[in-house]
C-alpha cells in the first residue's frame, strides 16, 4: 500500500460500516431470549392443552418437578442425561460442518447391541475398569464404523448424506435386532433379549449416578474445546459456513468430512455404551429409544454450542423423568412429553420469525445450513 493512498484516506471523514457489532451484552441477551422464550411459551401452550384435556396444568408441572427433581429424583434425571449429552456432542460436531448425520438411531442401537452382547461375558473375565473401557471403545468404534459408508460417499462423490445416513440407520436398527435374536441371544430365556449385565458402571460416590455421566461431561468439554479452540474445529466451521470457502483456503475437504463423521458416530456409540452399562443392563429387540430425535431441537436451541446444550438437556431430562410419572398420575400418555418438545420446536420457529422476518429458524443454523435452506428461494445470479 502506498503511503500516498493512506494519507488520502485518512484525510476523509471516518466512515464506519453501518451495522458493525461485536458480541456484546445485547447479543448475549438476544441469544438467551431466543433460546429460553420458546421453552417458556411451549410450557404455556402445554398448559392450555392440559386445561383442554381437563387436567390441572400447575398440578401436572408441579408433579414433574416433584418427580424429576425433589427427593433425590434429580439423580434419576442426571442418569438420563448421560446418553443425551453424548448424542448432543456427536450431533454438534457434525452439524457444525453443515453435514447431517441422521443415522444416529442405527449407530446407537448397533453400539448398544454389541455392548449388551459382549458385556455380560467381558465384565466377568477381565478387570471391571478395563472391561468398561473396552466396551465404551467398542461401542464408539461400531458407531463410527456405521458412518463410514455415508462419509466416503459424501467426501468422494458429494452424495447427499441425509439419505445415506438414514438408509444406514434402518439397516443398523434391523441388524441390531438380528444380532439380539442370533449370536447375542440369552439362551436362558425364550424372550428375544441379551443376557443381563451382572456388573454395571460404578456410581459416583455418594450418589446413584453412574460414572457414565462423567464420561459424558468430559466428552462435552473436549468437543467444546476442539470446536472452539483448535485448528481442526476452525476448519470444520469453515466447511460448515461454505465448502467453496474451505476449498479456497486449501482445506482437505475429503479428510475433514470423513473424520467429522467418524467423530460423530463415535460419540453416538459412546452414548449407547453409557446407557446400557449405566442404566439398561440389557437390550431386547424392538427397543429403540430414539434419543437423537428428541435431542435435535435442543442442539439447535443451543446454537450448535456443545456447552450451551447442557442446560437444555438437563431441563429435558427433568421433564422426561418427572414427566413419565406425572403423565401416569394424570392418566395421560407419555407421548404428551413429545408434544411439549414439538411445541418448543414450533415456538423456536415463531420467535425466529418475529425476530427476523422470513429467515425462518435462521439464527439457529450455521451460515451454510442457512444458505442451503434459502437456496431454493434465491436466484443464483452469475455475477453476484
Amino acid at each position, binding site marked *: 500500500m502506498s503511503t500516498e493512498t493512506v494519507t488520502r484516506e485518512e484525510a476523509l*471523514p471516518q*466512515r464506519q460500516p453501518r451495522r*458493525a457489532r*461485536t458480541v456484546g451484552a445485547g447479543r448475549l441477551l438476544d441469544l438467551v431470549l431466543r433460546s429460553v422464550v420458546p421453552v417458556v411459551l411451549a410450557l404455556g401452550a402445554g398448559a392450555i392443552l392440559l386445561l383442554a384435556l381437563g387436567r390441572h396444568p400447575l398440578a401436572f408441572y408441579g408433579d414433574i418437578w416433584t418427580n424429576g427433581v425433589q427427593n433425590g429424583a434429580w439423580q434419576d434425571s442426571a442418569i438420563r442425561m448421560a446418553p443425551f449429552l453424548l448424542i448432543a456432542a456427536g450431533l454438534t460436531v457434525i452439524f457444525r460442518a453443515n453435514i447431517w448425520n441422521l443415522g444416529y438411531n442405527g449407530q446407537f442401537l448397533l453400539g448398544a447391541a454389541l455392548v449388551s452382547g459382549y458385556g455380560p461375558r467381558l465384565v466377568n473375565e477381565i478387570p471391571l475398569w478395563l472391561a468398561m473401557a473396552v466396551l465404551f471403545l467398542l461401542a464408539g468404534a461400531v458407531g463410527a464404523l456405521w458412518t463410514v459408508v455415508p462419509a466416503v460417499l459424501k467426501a468422494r462423490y458429494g452424495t447427499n448424506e441425509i439419505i445415506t445416513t438414514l438408509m444406514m440407520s434402518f439397516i443398523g436398527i434391523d441388524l441390531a435386532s438380528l444380532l439380539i435374536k442370533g449370536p447375542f441371544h440369552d439362551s436362558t430365556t425364550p424372550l428375544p433379549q441379551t443376557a443381563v449385565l451382572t456388573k454395571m458402571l460404578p456410581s459416583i460416590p455418594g450418589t446413584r449416578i453412574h460414572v457414565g455421566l462423567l464420561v459424558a461431561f468430559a466428552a462435552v468439554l473436549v468437543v467444546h474445546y476442539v470446536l472452539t479452540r483448535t485448528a*481442526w474445529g476452525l476448519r470444520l466451521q469453515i466447511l460448515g459456513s461454505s465448502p*467453496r*470457502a474451505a476449498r479456497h483456503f486449501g482445506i482437505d475437504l475429503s479428510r475433514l468430512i470423513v473424520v467429522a463423521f467418524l467423530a460423530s458416530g463415535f460419540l453416538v456409540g459412546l452414548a449407547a455404551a453409557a446407557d446400557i452399562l449405566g442404566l439398561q443392563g440389557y437390550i431386547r429387540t424392538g427397543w429403540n429409544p430414539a434419543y437423537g430425535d428428541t435431542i435435535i431441537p435442543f442442539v439447535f436451541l443451543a446454537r450448535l454450542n456443545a456447552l450451551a446444550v447442557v442446560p437444555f438437556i438437563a431441563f429435558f431430562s427433568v421433564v422426561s423423568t418427572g414427566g413419565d410419572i406425572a403423565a401416569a398420575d394424570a392418566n395421560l400418555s407419555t407421548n404428551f412429553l413429545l408434544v411439549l418438545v414439538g411445541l418448543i420446536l414450533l415456538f423456536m420457529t415463531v420467535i425466529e420469525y418475529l425476530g427476523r422476518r422470513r429467515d425462518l429458524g435462521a439464527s439457529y443454523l*450455521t451460515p451454510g445450513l442457512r444458505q442451503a435452506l434459502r437456496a431454493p428461494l434465491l436466484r443464483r445470479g*452469475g455475477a453476484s
Partner: protein
Amino acid sequence: MNARNDTGAPLVELLGITKAFPGVLANDGVDVTLRRGEVHCLLGENGAGKSTLIGILAGLIRPDAGTIRIEGVETAISSPRRALELGIGTVHQHSTLIPALSVLENLMLGDSRGVRLDRPRGERRLAELAAQLGVDIDPATRAADLSLGYQQQVEIVKALWRGSRVLILDEPTSMLTPQGVAELAKVLVRLKAQGQAIIFITHKLHEALSLGDEISILRQGRLAGTIGREALRSRSQEELRAEIVRIMFGDEARAVADVAELQEELDSVEGTARTVAAEAEVVLELRGVSSPREGAELGVEEVSLELREGEILGVAGVDGNGQRALAEVIAGQRPASAGELLLYGAPVTRTKVARRQKLGLRYVTDDRLGEGIVGALPVGLNLFLKRVGERPYWRHGRIQRAVVDGRATELVREFDVRTPSVTTRAATLSGGNIQKVLLARELSFEPKVVVFHKPTYGLDVRTTATVREQIRSLAEGGGAALVISTDLDELLEICDRIAVLSRGRLVGVVPNGQGAAERVGELMVGGGAGLEAA
C-alpha cells in the same frame, strides 16, 4: 426535438421518492424527471440508490413515500405488470432471455393475448421494432446462440414489445465490447428520435457525458445534483467532469488532493503500457493447461501463457468464458486435467493450495463473500484462514489468539481496513473493506505471483483506486500480477499486455497501447464466433 419536450407535462416525474431498507435509507427524497426523446443518465457509486430508484419505477419496489406522475397524473406503480401497462419497459443488467427458446419465442413469452402463439403477428412486430432500432434480428435463432450485444438488442426489443414509452437500461454497457457500446449508442439515438424517454444507469462518467441529455447524480440515497441539457451542451468536458466528481463525492472530494486521479478512475483511459524487459524472468508459465467445466461455467482448454517478473497481464473476456476455471487452476483450487504449471520454472501442477500460498502464488477471489471470507468469523481470524494450523498462529493445534490478533491489527492498519476492531465479525464490513481483508491476506508475507479475479467489481471509486494502486506496486516491487476482469477499461488502465479468453481458450494477447481496446474487442467477438454454431 427540443420543441416537443417543451409542450405539456413531462412523461414521468418521480417526486420525493423515499425508500428505507433495514439499516439503510436507499432513497431519500429523490426527484427525477424523464422527458420524451431524452436520455436521462443516473450516475452514482455502488449503493448510491440507483437500483432502488429504477426498481420503484419498474414496479418491483414500493416506495415508502413520494409520488410518481405520468404525464402529469399521479399514478401508483403497484406491480411490474402495472409498469408494463403504463409503458415502462426494463432492460436488466443480466440477461432474462431463456436460452433454449428462440428469439421470437422469448419475445412472445409476455404476450398474454390469446392462447395460441400468433407467430406471423409476432414476426411482424419484431420486424417493425427492428426497423425502428436499425438492427437486424433473426427471429429463429436460439437465445443461447446470440452474442451479448445481440442479446441486449433482443432485450431492448422485448422491453419495447408492448409499446413502451419509457425504457430503463440498467448498466447496459457493463457486459459489452467497445464495438457493442458504439452499437448501443446508435440504437439510443434512434429511440430518442421516436420520442422514447430513456433512463440509463451507469457508473462510468464518460458514458454519461457522451450519451446523456441530462445527468442525475445519486449519493448515499440522495439526489446530490443534476446537470441539465443546457449545461451539458455549453460547458467543456473537463468542467463537467470536475463538476460531477465534486457532486459525487461532495466535501470528500475537496479533501482529496488529486481529484484528477479520481476522474481518471471514473473515465475510460487509453492504456499506457510500461515496458517489461523481454529478458525479465518468467515467473509463472502455463503450458497447455486444461480443466473441465463445472456446472454452467466453462472450463479452460489448452491455455498457455507466460507471466514475467514486474508484469501485469490482463485477461479480458465476457463473463463465464472460463475466467473462474483459469483462476482456480492457477490457485490450485481445481485440478488441471492436462498441461503443466510452472512457478519460477519449477512444476506446481499438483501442488496444494496451502503450499502454493506459501510459495507466493496468491489468489484474490472474485467471490468475496462466498469463498473469500467466512462472515461469521472475526476479521482478524479471516486474515489467517489460509494458514490454519500453522505456527506461530496455532501451536499444537491450539489457536494463539494474542498472536493472531496482534498480527491482524498490524495488517488492518497497513491495508487500511475500516473495521471497529479485529474481533468484529467480517460479515458486517462493507464490500470495499472485505476486499481489503482479502488483499491483506494475499499480499502479505512475500507475495510473488498474484491472480486478481475481478479485483474492483462492485467497489466504490476510492477503493477501486486503492486496489489498482496495490496491483501496480506489486508489479513495481518485482512481483507479477494476472488480472482477470470483465471491465476492459480497467485492464486498459493497469495492464502491460491483455490476453483474451473466449470459450475457455486464450485467443490472443494484445500489447496495451493505442488501439488495444478495439483489437481486444475484435478478439472477444471473433474468438467466439467460430464456436457459436457448435
